[in-house]
């Protein structure tokens, strides 16, 4: 089901871990959508000197994290910002269709970490790295399908768009 490259990065993930006193940190996803990813950055003269990740997720999510860190390491911030989810999926020689959402987390986490770095640098640090709570309940805004992000109807556990069963957790 997975390409050789995906399995290689899953079995021997590169750049796993935490950077103490990181210059930037980005955390995306939540267990509700199946994956969580945290990216840590060490920046030197607007260049990614070191990058590490921690991921809770399926084989694809771990491989995406690993590949992403390999792609971003050594890049200037401007170049790193240009890395798209599609680039990561392509570098992995493709992902199964139902796993493409995992690749979305990767670049999102990186971009969030860069934003966090820039905010700190400008003296307006984001108190805690922003975490996407898209899928959880927000009062007044309702719940969203964790798979296609369509707004759900209160009390109905089936997504009106993708027809999957979703449990609304408030």
């Amino acid at each position, binding site marked *: 089901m997975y390409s050789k490259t995906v399995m290689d990065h*899953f079995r021997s993930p590169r750049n796993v871990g935490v950077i103490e006193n990181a210059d930037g940190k980005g955390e995306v996803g939540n267990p509700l959508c199946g994956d969580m990813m945290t990216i840590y950055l060490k920046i030197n003269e607007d260049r990614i000197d070191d990058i590490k990740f921690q991921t*809770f997720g399926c*084989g694809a999510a771990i491989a995406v994290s690993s590949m992403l860190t390999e792609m971003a390491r050594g890049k200037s911030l401007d170049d790193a910002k240009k890395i798209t989810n599609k680039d990561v999926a392509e570098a992995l020689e493709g992902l*199964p269709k139902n796993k493409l959402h995992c690749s979305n987390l990767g670049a999102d986490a990186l971009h969030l970490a860069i934003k966090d770095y820039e905010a700190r640098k400008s003296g307006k640090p984001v108190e805690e790295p922003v975490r996407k709570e898209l899928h959880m309940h927000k009062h007044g805004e309702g719940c969203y399908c964790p798979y296609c992000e369509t707004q759900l109807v209160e009390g109905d556990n089936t997504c009106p768009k993708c027809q999957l069963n979703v449990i609304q957790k408030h």
Partner: protein
Amino acid sequence: MNIINLDHLSANPLLPEVQEAMIHAIRADFGNPSSQHKLGDKASEALEKARDSVARLINSGSPKEVVFTSGGTESVNLGVKGVAWAKAEKGKHIVTSNIEHNAVLRSLRRLKMMDYKVSSVPVDSHGRVDPSDVAKAIKSDTVLVTIMHSNNEIGTLQPIEEIARITREKNVVFHVDAVDSVGVVPVDVEKLGVDLLSFASNSFYGPTGVGGLYVRRGTHIWPLLDGGVQENNRRAGTENLIGIIGMGVAAELAARDMTSRIAGMKKLKDRLLRELPSTISEYIVNGHPALSLPNLVSVSIKYIEGESLVLLLDDENIAVSTRSACAAGALQASHVLLSIGRDFADAQGTLVITFGLDNSEEDVTRFLKALKDAVKTLREISPLYAKAAQA
């Protein structure tokens, strides 16, 4: 290295006796069981012999009550929709539980599109239905109750006999999805008192693509497929004779060896559960501690995701299953695990181990060793584990 199969719920090997019978059937010159000539008679004799064996396995009073199908999914569809359609004039309300298999859930979803109404009763933290909840859910226009015999994810057995007493008293048809029970644990349709009961051949080492629906005498169902008058007008289409012959032999063996098989499975399950605490930390064993399938263990392992675990164990030539969000394209947390109170993260980290006749205690030892390493590896990557460790 040989592969250790701890995923027997997904696929069981065919027993040698079953293989023999099927190979013999392939070579034999069988006609069509519905034909009037001698070739037809020969086929019909083999068909009815298999029906006898299957009827005996579930202690049906008459083999006529067994309808052969293409497997568990068709049996469930036939049982649920067949009754709903046949009873539509009496009412369109159906009662079920929160932890049914997709075959039931999606049959009911389809019926909802046809203006049927469905009430679903909850389960307790062990996954058991309270029969009094079923009694309360039954209304004047209820035509069907459908509850599973055992759950395919957590193994919990349901109080079918008690529920059947209620449905009989209230004159409502009761269908039971017993796909993971028949041939594995004793299932006696007379003792249970159910009206319809679905089962599949592969659960007891028969071929896939064959199953059956028990239909108590006097229970009216509409067929799903329209065509010939096979299976007493309840399932059109020439019977899959070779598969059915295999199923018949598998049923005979299951009935004969039931007690020793259960003892063997229980031994492996008990050993696994006994040694788990010294293997990994922070996990939850799902399902009822006693009223459960003897061949199934479900365990939610904190801070890690199930698919990753399955892939790492596969690298060690150990086959297990997960019901996590990312499993097999399902991309959603298991409704069963959420129903018994697991949170989303724990539901994702769930492993389902199902033993079979080819497993040994040595397999359990090898599995536990591999599990220990895999959990350690994945927790080292996991941000959830890091956070928990900090706290």
